[in-house]
């Protein structure tokens, strides 16, 4: 606990070169962007952009460089630019990631870096997809606390252990990287998908919630958890490090143990 910490030293010896430093190297990349604009053509195409980038730049910086300096019509969503708002999930070199959290230097820059919209949702323009089906699935699992008891005057009590039980699934930012990486979701548009199950998990395992059985019933549906084929794509895709496949497994377990 911080309250019991001893006062840190007023002065310490810093090791040489602390904080890193030196010249930031630049390097050249080719960004190969999937383009689609039905106002112009029903055909999608690839556009290549050659760019000089810096050591700390991310894929989002490269997309901005294109939009701001080369071609203003290249379209993508973004907002916070540091991995918390979930706007810029896209398929980068065939894997779902957030563009603002993917450093260019961590990719193979000897080949073109491909950037495509996430799969399984209708493409609107370039990297922008229609998120409505995704949010529809989210809404269907009743993603809110339901408590049937009397409202206490102060807060409800919850032990630190009970709080920890669902901590992992509270981290979800609804970016859709998991759901749109799922092969079952690609072929079956009705499947709830990992993100909705993650958000159901967040309440099913919250000791304050009384509607777990209702949510388990929803997810016991033919388009529910049993469609999951445990390919682990979702866990790999999650930019927040949520153990998505494990959360789905826990929901399956809960359905079985409650014999719904």
């Amino acid at each position, binding site marked *: 606990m*911080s*309250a019991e*910490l001893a006062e*840190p*030293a*007023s*002065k310490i*010896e*810093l090791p040489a070169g602390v*904080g*890193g*430093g030196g*010249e930031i190297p630049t390097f050249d990349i080719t960004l190969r962007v999937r383009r689609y*604009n039905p106002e*112009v053509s029903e055909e999608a195409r690839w556009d290549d952009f050659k760019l000089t980038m810096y050591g*700390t730049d991310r894929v989002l910086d490269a997309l901005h460089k294109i*939009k*701001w*300096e080369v*071609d*203003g*019509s290249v*379209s*993508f969503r*973004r*907002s*916070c*630019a*540091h991995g*918390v*708002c*979930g*706007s810029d999930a896209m398929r980068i070199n065939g894997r779902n990631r957030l563009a603002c959290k993917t*450093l260019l230097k961590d990719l193979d820059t000897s080949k073109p870096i491909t950037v495509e919209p996430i799969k399984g949702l209708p493409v*609107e*323009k370039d990297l*922008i997809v229609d998120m409505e089906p995704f*949010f529809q699935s*989210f809404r269907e699992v*009743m*993603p*809110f*606390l339901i408590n049937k008891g009397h*409202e206490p005057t*102060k*807060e409800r*009590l*919850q*032990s*630190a252990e009970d*709080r920890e039980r*669902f*901590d992992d699934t*509270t*981290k*979800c*930012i*609804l970016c859709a990287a998991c759901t749109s990486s799922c092969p079952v979701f690609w072929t079956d548009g009705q499947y709830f998908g990992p993100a909705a199950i993650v958000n159901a998990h967040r*309440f099913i395992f*919250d000791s304050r919630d009384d509607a777990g059985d209702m949510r388990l019933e929803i997810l016991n549906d033919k388009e529910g958890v049993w469609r999951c084929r445990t390919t682990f794509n979702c866990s790999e895709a999650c930019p927040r490090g949520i153990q998505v496949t494990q959360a789905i497994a826990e929901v399956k377990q809960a359905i079985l143990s409650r014999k719904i």
Partner: protein
Amino acid sequence: MQVHKYDVVIVGAGGAGMRAAIESGQRARTAVLTKLYPTRSHTGAAQGGMCAALANVEEDNWEWHTFDTIKGGDYLVDQDAAEVMAKEAIDAVLDLEKMGLPFNRTPEGRIDQRRFGGHTRDHGKAPVRRACYAADRTGHMILQTLYQNCVKHNVEFYNEYYVLDLLTVEEDAVREDGTAYKQKRVAGVVSYDLASGELHVFQAKSVVFASGGAGKVFKTTSNAHTLTGDGMGIAFRRGIPLEDMEFFQFHPTGLAGLGILLSEAARGEGAILRNSEGERFMERYAPTIKDLAPRDIVARSMANEVREGRGCGPNKDYVLLDLTHLEPAHIDAKLPDITEFARTYLGVEPYTEPVPVFPTAHYAMGGIPTNINTEVLQDNDTVVPGLYAAGEVACVSVHGSNRLGTNSLLDINVFGKRAGIAAAEYAKTAGFVELPEDPEAYTLELLDIARKGTGDEKVAVIRKELQDTMDANMQVFRTAETLNQVLKDIASFEERYKRINVQDKGKRFNLDLLEAVELGFLLELAKVMTVAALHREESRGGHFREDFPDRDDEKFMKHSMAYKDEHAPADGSAESIAGIRLATKPVVFTRYEPMVRKY
């Protein structure tokens, strides 16, 4: 063009907008118009906590919280508003818990609390544990919890509807003292549907602005790309004044060179700042509470260390946030996200290496003036019936000249709730105001300037130059000379803005056009901020004038009010600078006399 009709229209779906929607949606027919999907809002980036004197872990009370807020704001806070906020903070936290927010817990199962800058026991005696939190994701949890409850209450969202105009009418009216004036009334808003490029007019009895801040006027900022001050700009263009715009908060600990926020919670949990000599330099500037001094003081101290040659790195242009004396398990439990940011974006391991940090533009203390009921003011005391504002877009004013950490998450909850209730209650008794003729005409013109431009100027280039001059001249240290430089630069940007050329000519998701419109707001607001900063010849809170280094209560213990006024003579007088007229508004005092601000 389509016309919609709602009792209440809320502009923005961050914390304040959704907190308002939860209240309003249960009382009146409500629509929420938002430029982004609700969960993308920047409330989600807030990290450290939300203060309320729950006294769950040590003695505390809301009066101490009120005092800290007022002193933290260097006495420019309206004290009635600070009292409301500190008092209602307790219910605001309990409301969120009941809605499902997963707060960290004490061993007894209560909501846990931790220290934060400027929050103290008994009027400054020592830091107090007042911030309720969920690891370093408190804003994320608030945003998700509010969105979940909006889903629960079937709140109607219009996602990616970018509001571009406020529709008002003016009526002749007479004050109690017999003087005539023009009374504004709200008729609705005009919005641009990003997906289709179509305009939609929303007629409404009440309009709530909750559209957030304007951090993108600066280059180094913790703010999202989308925080371009649209709400403030729209109101200002429609004759609503902007209050205290010179006060912008620079958060001490942005990742050096990037501006990404590292929560003050790090220092609340025991992290300390060091210079290139390894010194804990805050001992010099705030001997009592050191690293937990308010943000303006810490940011200025850091900038001063760098100026005096004690910065770190090859260019000696940052200082270090040292967590290496903390247990890794403690860091993982309390600060997981920010340590990951340091690893991901700078390649620094916070367990063993101090993290390079420098102040980053963070929060607008000023905004659309409101009273404590969130009603928008068209001058010092005339309310615009049906118009409300809450959150960063508003200035109520609970933050004065410097906001304390955690008080923004509190602000959005307390005043968001108040706005939602007030807007719905007003709509129950009021009728619709008739829409003006051609309600979309102004917006069409605005879009056409950008859309049909054939000049040779690029939006991104002008924006970058604006952000560069703001960082160089309007940041932690200011002088008349630097501020005049900004105004000179902005005058040339405004000329160049008339010659912009938007490459994307389509209607569908034309984000190129959106950025052009946003730049218009940024230019307008940067100018207001700078004019107000030039006019305030004193140093107070987040506004530090090297040519006037002391607080001057005699002349400047008052809010500034900036009005758009095309007729304001550009005669170089302090009160009017090219299209902006400046006035003042008294500060509300209840029980706290201004004192020298020492920590």
